[in-house]
């Protein structure tokens, strides 16, 4: 199987789906001539021309709003927000328009919109450029939220998003763009809402998504050296999320650790934990452990920033606590 990067995987999904469906258009800041600030849209302008691939002004609210209108008008816009941080500028269009319109108009407004946005911390970009916005989106009925952790999922899930009835928020992690992995050349879309067990284990379940899946995997390797079998579940999709897969695993291991990059308050880990408590409380041998980002804006200094983002060692420590070690 060919090995490609996460960046190339996203790019391939765009290429293939645009060839398949001429209603897909791609636009955003510097996506066409500059080929994306992370070079994810490389080659698209050349291949599909300026009617389908075009640069926009720095106008995030209007980028999203235009995508909504284009979708209502029969297209399948795949807009890029240069980074997730700028989605804040467009939140009214995303949360108050895109998310609610199908419902508000009695199911008549089809909105096959995909919003791609890279995000996440770890590059010393400071408080305004290091956000992980998944919680804001996941909180909102009407949106689907995908968070691929691997190149294969980046491709499979983006294909799924581009064929979905939408709207879909597609969160790419800046720290993963150079990650290489095996990706089938011919690939069917992945199934939205399905988690994946990346590593089986019997002692503790570690749930992650996006970059945190890799912290979970690294933690599992640390724990293996201590004879602890950690089962790693990659959620892949945050809304809907695969409750059944998580509950099934925790019912077997009786212990759970949930890892997330943003701050803990009302977060993804809290949501997963409460579902475990509500459904399989009696199966638990220890409280669910949450490993979250610091409850503070992201600092610039490298040491402070590193201390704000969950590391494999933090995840392993949480697993040890769950195991009473």
């Amino acid at each position, binding site marked *: 199987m060919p090995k490609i990067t996460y960046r190339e995987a996203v790019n391939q999904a765009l290429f293939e789906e645009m060839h398949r469906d001429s209603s897909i258009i791609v636009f955003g800041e510097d996506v066409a001539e500059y080929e994306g600030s992370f070079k994810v849209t490389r080659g698209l302008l050349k291949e599909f021309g300026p009617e389908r691939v075009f640069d926009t002004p720095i106008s995030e609210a209007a980028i999203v709003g235009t995508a909504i209108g284009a979708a209502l008008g029969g297209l399948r816009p795949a807009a890029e927000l240069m980074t997730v941080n700028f989605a804040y500028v467009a939140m009214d269009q995303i949360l108050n328009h895109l998310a609610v319109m199908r419902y508000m108009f009695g199911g008549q407004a089809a909105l096959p919109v995909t919003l791609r946005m890279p995000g996440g911390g770890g590059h010393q970009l*400071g408080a305004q450029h290091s956000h992980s916005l998944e919680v804001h989106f996941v909180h909102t009925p009407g949106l689907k939220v995908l968070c691929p952790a691997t190149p294969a999922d980046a491709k499979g899930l983006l294909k799924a998003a581009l064929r979905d009835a939408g709207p879909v928020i597609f969160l790419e992690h800046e720290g993963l763009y150079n990650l290489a992995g095996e990706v089938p050349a011919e690939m069917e879309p992945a199934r939205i809402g399905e988690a994946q067990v990346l590593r089986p284990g019997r002692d503790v379940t570690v749930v992650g998504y996006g970059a945190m899946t890799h912290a979970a995997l690294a933690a599992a390797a640390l724990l293996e050296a201590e004879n602890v079998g950690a089962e790693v579940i990659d959620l892949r999709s945050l809304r809907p999320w695969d409750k059944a897969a998580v509950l099934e695993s925790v019912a077997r291991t009786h212990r759970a650790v949930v890892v997330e990059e943003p701050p803990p308050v009302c977060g993804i880990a809290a949501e997963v934990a409460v579902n475990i408590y509500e459904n399989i409380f009696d199966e638990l041998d220890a409280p669910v452990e949450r490993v979250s980002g610091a409850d503070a804006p992201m600092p610039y200094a490298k040491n402070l920033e*590193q201390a704000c983002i969950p590391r494999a060692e933090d995840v392993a420590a949480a697993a040890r606590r769950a195991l009473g070690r």
Partner: protein
Amino acid sequence: MKKSELLHAYYLMRLARGFEARVAEQYLKGRIGGFCHLYSGEEAVAVGAMWHLRKEDYVIGSYRDHAYYLIRGGDPRRAMAELFGHEDGCCKGKGGSMHLFDRGINFLGGYAIVAGMCPIAAGLAKAAAYRKEDRVVVCFFGDGATNQGVYHEALNMASLYKLPVVWVCENNYYAIGTSVPRSSARESLAAKATAYDMPVSTVDGMDFLKMQSAAGRAVAAARAGKGPSFIEAKCYRYRGHSMSDPGTYRSKEEVEYWKSRDPLPHLKRIIQDDFEAGEEEFAAIDARVARELDEAVRFAEAGRELPPEKRLEDVYAE
């Protein structure tokens, strides 16, 4: 203008230019991280725009902020330390290159969300007006910012309430890789601002004297309670958008053309033409700048980061 004043303007531009050269060096050594945007080429804009300000006036701007901070009178040592992420940086290392800030000099921040600071500038001016303080606000932003909704909202409100703001648009022709004609329906950004019924001007931002004279009118109008003005400063950034942008979308000829109009030798020539000014006077300025920048780098090298537990401080007041 007096010779000493012109020499001071020259010094400020040199300082800003020299600082960016040191920053680039340190960035490549890996001592500075994150996004780092240099002001090289645009010095006449900031020095000119701030020329008529008094201590109590406010300055606010974008992430391309090292020059604003230094020209406003900031300590180069504390700026460099901030870029190193150190505790004795002007924001304790929590802000970084894009987020300098210093209350002591009324530089109220570099902001990394394009146009995010525009309404904040209007709010500062509102506070000054309400408190009957004699303060003017100078707000710096790029051509790209004029395509943001909040920019238009802020210009409208400032004009509506006749707030003492000087809007300084650094039109360096590009927002990362997108040129003005490819992003703004109205290519003249001054014309675009006329919608808000305030005085606008388009100025050669490579020329300190022209910049300061336009700023003089705008600052005087703001002080006189006549409300905001808009200055479109045509300028150029010599480097890529940030340290991580190779800037391949601009031709070599274009960059060379702008470098041939460099504001530093231009001002030097004016000083030499109008006054007796020997090379040694400029050499003395260069030497002073080099000394101050050596000192800034040494200071930063000697510092350290905050201990990690301090990451949770400053979120709230207590």
